[in-house]
């Protein structure tokens, strides 16, 4: 079973994502911000990270840049999942090492399509 780390400061979004991803047969870890996510990645490397952009403590893009610099972490697939829905943010995310990008709101169909494109399905 593949493991997905859901990183979002919204409890509601984490709950919705968990429900969808569990139905897709993923094991779920949760983090409330980028710092929390980075600490968890050092403990246990997930296969994929579903990553919000705007979060307190450490935002999604800073987390991603830190993650991609850490040679000691087995690098997971990173799929941004954010309300930032403009081309500038998408380019920034992809340049920082994201593998896919979901613009909120999302549903199961979109997550499945995006996960399929990065070889997770």
């Amino acid at each position, binding site marked *: 079973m593949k493991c997905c780390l859901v990183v979002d400061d919204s409890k509601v979004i984490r709950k919705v994502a968990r429900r969808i991803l569990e139905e897709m047969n993923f094991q779920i870890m949760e983090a409330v911000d980028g710092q929390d996510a980075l600490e968890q990645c050092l403990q246990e490397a997930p296969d994929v990270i579903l990553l919000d952009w705007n979060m307190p403590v450490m935002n999604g893009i800073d987390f991603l840049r830190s993650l991609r610099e850490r040679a000691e972490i087995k690098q997971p697939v990173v799929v941004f999942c954010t309300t930032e829905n*403009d081309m500038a943010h*998408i*380019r920034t995310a992809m340049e920082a090492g994201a593998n896919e990008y979901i*613009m909120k709101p999302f549903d199961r169909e979109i997550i499945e399509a995006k996960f*399929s*494109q990065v070889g997770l399905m």
Partner: protein
Amino acid sequence: MKPEDFQLLSDLLKRRSGLQLSPEKGYLLESRLTPLARKRGLEGLDELIAEIRNTRDETLMRDVTEAMTTNESFFFRDNTPFDLFRNHVLPGLRECRKDRKHIRIWCAACSTGQEPYSLAMILKEQQATLPGWRFEIVGTDLSPKVLDKAKQGVYSQFEVQRGLPIQLLMKYFEQTGEMWQLTDQIRQMVTYKEFNLLDPFDALGKFDVIYCRNVLIYFDQPTKTQILDRMRAQIPADGTLFLGAAETVLGITDVFKPVRGQRGMYIPADSPALAQPAAAIA
């Protein structure tokens, strides 16, 4: 709904589009035609049916047909038919058509354009390896309304997220407010025509590849057979046909054979590939 009303609408749809409406799908008439009735200032479906019966108005009958057709579509739908095109069909055509350097593709019932544009993006991505080649993609549909949307190439955030890889969105779309506009370089690769699959195909010309996915399921068996047999006449022996995942030629026609291990991909029964042991059919 009264049986005679169901019969009137079902006959109209069969005659004009080939669409086969079974009695258990009668609820679709209510759900799809009631908004049309309201749009025309009528009370409901009964009044709409009365108007069809009394006036036989061409515009009304076209609107009814259009409202009843299913137009769901998304980019790279089901992935496999596009992977097969990129990895199997295109390399084959590169060899077989190297003298002509011209590939023609027909997307039958292309709806709002996502299928032909997906193919156009694949071809554009491969263009560096095919210098001097011409690609022609023809998208046809019964509905002028969906063709208008296809021609515009403007899609919502929801539509561009269903199947379109983010790299292709970045490369071939521009954001206009809440919508995403496909760039001219891709739009210009596709031409659209209003076309009914029950009509003769001759005027469309010949094709190397035909995509006719998730259309035949709406037709009865004799209609499926005659459409597939006529499609065979539109492609050469080394051409390819793609059908939807829930569709098949088996038990419907012998002019196409499925390609083993390649879901949804069919080749003519007299294809030269079938003479080679490696290309055995299912």
